[in-house]
C-alpha cells in the first residue's frame, strides 16, 4: 500500500491533490459529488475583506482545450465566510487553504489578519496574480519588488503559513519566485491563469464583458509545467504546481518536474470527481511502479 502523504514542511497533506481556488467554490458546492475528506486539500475561492460584486457577464469563453474566465472574484467577504462557511468546513477532514485577495497590500494584510483569528484554516494562498480584476490584467505578481513587499507585509500579520501564488504572465518566473521566497513565503504555487481574450467576429465585440480574462485548462499545461520546473529548480521552499491538470499523468508530470503537490482547477468544472479520480490513478501508478512513498518521485526528472 503506497503512502500518498506529502510533507510540505509547514503543512502535511494526506495526498498531493488539492482543489484549486475558484473552481471548487467555497468547498461545499462539490460535496454533492465528492467525499471531501479524501482530498489532499481545498483552496477556497478568492476572498477580499468585503463582499465583491464581480464582473458583468459574459464571464466565460471556451477556447480550444481551454477556458477563459473573467469572474472578477465575486465573493462574500471574510465576515460572511467565517460565519456561514467556515463552521461547515471545519467538519471536513482535509486541509483548508484560503485564497487571499486585495485591492492593495493593506487589504491582503487585513484579510489574513481577520482570518488568522479563526479556527479551521491551515494556510493562506496569496492571490497576487489574478489577471481579470484590473482591466489591463495588472497584478503584483508581475513585479519582483511588489511581490516581495506584499509577501513580507502579509507574512507579518499571519499566524499561518503563506503560499504565494504566481502569475505566468512574466518574462522571468524564477525572479518572481525568489522575491516571494525572500519576502518570507513558506511555499509557492503556480500558475494562475494566462491573460487572454477572444473576439466575436459577427458583433466585432470582445466575447468577455471584461475584454481580458484568464486562460486555464489543458491548453496551458505545457507552459505551466515549464514554469513549475524552472521555479522548483531555483527556490528552496516547496512548490505546488498547477495548470491544466486533468489526469494522474498530468499530475505526475508536474511532480516529476519538481512540484511537491498539485492543484486541480478547471477539471473540477467538467468532472466534479476529477480530484478523486486523479488520487486513485496516482495510487495505481505507484503500485504498478512499486513506489512506496509518492514523495520519492518529486523532482526526479532525468535530464
Amino acid at each position: 500500500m503506497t503512502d500518498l502523504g506529502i510533507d510540505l514542511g509547514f503543512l502535511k497533506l494526506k495526498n498531493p491533490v488539492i482543489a484549486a481556488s475558484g473552481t471548487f467554490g467555497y468547498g461545499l458546492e462539490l460535496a454533492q459529488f465528492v467525499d471531501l475528506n479524501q482530498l489532499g486539500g481545498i483552496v477556497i475561492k478568492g476572498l477580499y475583506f468585503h463582499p465583491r460584486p464581480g464582473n458583468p457577464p459574459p464571464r466565460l469563453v471556451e477556447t480550444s482545450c481551454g477556458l477563459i474566465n473573467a469572474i472578477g472574484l465575486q465573493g462574500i467577504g471574510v465576515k460572511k465566510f467565517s460565519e456561514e462557511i467556515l463552521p461547515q468546513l471545519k467538519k471536513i477532514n482535509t486541509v483548508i487553504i484560503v485564497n487571499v485577495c486585495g485591492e492593495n497590500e493593506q487589504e491582503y494584510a487585513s484579510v489574513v489578519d481577520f482570518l488568522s483569528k479563526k479556527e479551521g484554516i491551515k494556510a493562506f494562498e496569496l492571490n497576487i496574480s489574478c489577471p481579470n480584476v484590473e482591466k489591463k490584467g495588472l497584478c503584483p505578481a508581475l513585479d519582483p519588488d511588489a511581490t516581495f513587499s506584499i509577501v513580507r507585509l502579509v507574512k507579518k500579520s499571519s499566524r499561518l503559513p503563506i503560499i504565494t501564488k504566481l502569475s505566468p504572465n512574466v518574462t522571468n518566473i524564477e525572479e518572481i519566485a525568489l522575491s516571494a521566497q525572500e519576502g518570507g513565503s513558506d511555499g509557492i504555487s503556480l500558475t494562475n491563469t494566462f491573460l487572454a481574450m477572444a473576439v466575436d467576429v459577427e458583433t466585432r465585440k470582445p466575447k468577455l464583458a471584461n475584454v481580458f480574462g484568464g486562460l486555464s485548462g489543458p491548453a496551458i499545461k505545457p507552459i505551466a509545467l515549464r514554469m513549475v520546473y524552472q521555479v522548483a529548480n531555483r527556490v528552496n521552499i516547496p512548490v505546488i504546481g498547477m495548470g491544466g491538470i486533468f489526469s494522474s499523468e498530468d499530475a505526475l508530470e508536474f511532480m516529476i518536474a519538481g512540484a511537491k503537490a498539485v492543484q486541480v482547477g478547471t477539471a473540477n468544472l467538467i468532472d466534479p470527481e476529477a480530484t478523486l479520480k486523479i488520487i486513485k490513478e496516482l495510487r495505481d501508478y505507484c503500485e504498478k511502479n512499486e513506489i512506496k512513498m509518492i514523495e520519492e518521485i518529486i523532482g526526479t526528472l532525468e535530464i
Partner: protein
Amino acid sequence: MIKEPQSRIARKESWNDYCLFSIESPRIAQHARPGQFIMIRVNPHPYPLLRRPFSIHSRAKNTIEIFFQRIGVGTTLLAQKEADALLDILGPSGNGFSLNTGLKGKTVFLIGGGRGIAPLFFLAQELASLGAFVNIFYGGKSISDLCLKEKLEKKGFNLFCSTEDGSFGFKGLVTELLDEKIKNLIPEKMFVCGPEEMMKKIAYISSDKNIPAEFSLESTMGCGFGACWGCVRRIKRDNAESWLKICEEGPVFSTEEIIWQL
C-alpha cells in the same frame, strides 16, 4: 445533483437542425422538475472542453428527454451520436418553474421560441395534470423550427404557432401573435423560454399588463453546479440587485426579478 457517467441513449429522433434524445437515467428522472436541466459531457476528450446544458424536455419513469438545436461544435457532435451510445451527464440542475396548485382551472400561456420549447413540454404536462388550461405559443423563423408541433397537438394542448416567414401559422414574431391573443384572453400566468429579445418583449407585456410570468434564462455555463460563478445574470431579490448564479438560483426567474441588460 447526480453524476450518471453511463446513461444510454434509448431513442433518437432528428430533424434538420434539431435533435431529440430519450436518455435512460432513472435517478435523474425520479428527481426532475420542469425547468431543470442536465449537463452533458459531449466527449471524453478535452475538446470541446465544457459540459453543455440542456433542459429536461420530458420525464418518464426511467428516462428523461432532451430536445436540442445544432448551433455549434458541441451540439453538432452530440447530434452525431446514435441510440445506445452512452452519455456522461450531471443533473438535475437548477430550480425550475414554480408549480402551484392555485393554477387549477386557470388559463396559462407557455411561450417558446425555437429550441425554447424544450423545457415547456415537460412543464405543460405537469400544469395540465394540475388542472390548468395550457395554451402553448410556439414560434420559429420557419416551419422547420416547429418540429414538435404535432407532438404538442397530440398531447391535446391548445397550440398557437407562428413563423417569421409565414411558412406555418401566424406570420410574424411569436410575441406579435401573443399580442393578438392576449387582447381577448388574459392568462393567469405566463411561462417563457426563448431568445433574449423575445423574452424581453414578453417581460414588458408581463409588467405592463401585470400578468405574472416566469422566464428560463440562458448563459454560458462553466460547471452547472455552482462552483465557478460563470453563469451569472443580473437579478433583483429582496430589493437588492446582484449577479446570481443561474445554474443554482435559476435558470427560472420571475418578471420582477430579472434586470434585462441591453
